[in-house]
């Protein structure tokens, strides 16, 4: 792997996104609109404070998953990926380049969405607000990594978009937002224990109710980071230099 090639790829992906103003708008605005809607629905109840932080982690993951899986699928279909793999560009450079670019976008998205939730919608958390941003960025990068992996199994854009409900909805149902994870039926609790979104949501819930959550959050983020690394490694196995 080569830092220069990784940085070149990140820069190129960010340049591509920059020419697409509507996508930038959607990445930034959609999480804010959804959070605002949620705060409005639960006006005068404590529910928004309880689930707001968790959703602050879920929305960036969903958005990044879709954007990444479609972007890499396009790259496979247009022949640019095959062409890149005839150059010294490594599979790892390619994967980390994408993760870096969308990670940078995720920082912008997370700062704005968190700021909007806290200062406009009045989200109150026991822990520090900056930690919400850190966890949201990890979640967004997780979405990118899972999107890179999913795009390896998609042959068409229709399939790529269908992978969103297939990969993400089960994680959403089992992550502890609908029912606390320890109250799930035993088998489903086991399943939720091996899904990355569960730990992302655990970290957010910890920040919501604990005034000093750093230790617990670091543990959860460690697990999320391991899932990111695993997904990127598996995703690079789906890239092959040769095809039939």
């Amino acid at each position, binding site marked *: 792997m080569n830092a*220069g*090639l990784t940085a*070149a790829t990140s*820069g*190129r992906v960010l*340049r*591509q996104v920059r*020419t*697409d103003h509507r996508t930038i708008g959607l990445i930034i605005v959609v999480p804010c609109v959804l959070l605002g809607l949620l705060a409005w629905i639960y006006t005068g109840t404590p529910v928004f404070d309880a689930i707001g932080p968790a959703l602050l982690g879920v929305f960036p993951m969903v958005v990044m998953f879709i954007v990444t899986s479609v972007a890499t699928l396009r790259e496979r279909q*247009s*022949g*640019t990926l*095959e*062409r*890149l*793999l*005839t*150059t*010294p*560009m490594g599979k790892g450079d390619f994967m980390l380049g994408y993760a870096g670019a969308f990670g940078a976008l995720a920082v912008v998205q997370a700062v704005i969405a968190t700021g909007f939730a806290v200062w406009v919608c009045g989200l109150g958390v026991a822990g520090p607000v900056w930690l919400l941003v850190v966890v949201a960025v990890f979640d967004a990068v997780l979405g990118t990594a899972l999107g890179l992996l999913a795009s390896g199994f998609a042959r068409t854009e229709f399939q790529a978009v269908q992978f969103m409900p297939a990969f993400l909805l089960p994680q959403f149902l089992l992550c502890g937002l609908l029912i606390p994870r320890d109250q799930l039926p035993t088998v489903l609790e086991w399943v939720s224990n091996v899904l990355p979104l569960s730990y992302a949501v655990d970290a957010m819930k910890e920040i919501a109710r604990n005034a000093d959550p750093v230790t617990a959050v670091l543990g959860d983020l460690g697990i999320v980071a391991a899932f990111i690394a695993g997904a990127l490694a598996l995703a690079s196995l789906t890239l092959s*230099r*040769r*095809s*039939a």
Partner: protein
Amino acid sequence: MVNNSGPAVAVSGLQVVRGKRRVIPGLDLEIPAGQVVGLLGPSGSGKSTLMRCIVGVQIVESGTVTVLGHPAGSPTLRDRVGYVTQSPSVYADLSVRDNVTYFGRAIGLRGAELREAVDRTLAEVDLVSYADQLVQDLSGGQESRVSLAAALVGRPSLLVLDEPTVGLDPVLRRDLWDLFRHLADRGHSLVVSSHVMDEATRCDRLVLLREGRVLADATPAELLQQTGAVDADAAFLALIDAETARSGERSSS
């Protein structure tokens, strides 16, 4: 700069299956270094598949392909072989300059060297005045020139170009062939596929493919002499007719 000691490409006993078809049933070929070699043949004759084998992106059934002394696709070749696919493979949502710059970075160019290479390449493909346009706003011919530029920027020892002049006007076609000639004179090797026979005369050597087999491998002059034809088009037809007659005899006896 360029190693001239051996052939640019040596293919031996190559067999390729794509889908259910044996696209290349057994092919031997040597492509000399420092020449422009034209790969001609009707569509479906295996030109693109052979090129994919040379750049090492094709899964082969059996046989060997040696490029600049190394097995095709080996890591040492990745900054020495440039490949342009038949349909342009560049980023539609990037500017012309950003595309060429990115592919320049991918083969390791940096800083001033990269900027000079990009400027030189944009001039070579005549896209200087379009440098800051997005590729999606260009015409098809311009887009295929961006794709060509992305391979030229690294000045590879071996350039593999799949139909690089399709859809281009005569002036630009002539300029590009002049560029190919100039590169070959400086020791680069080029494999260029085409189905435009009048381009055949601009090649040092012609390889005629049909159904994954080499029908002829000669200089343009030798080819005309062998067949007694007046131009490459007629020579090609004469060879195909002769081949059809031979295989007809074989199957009837």
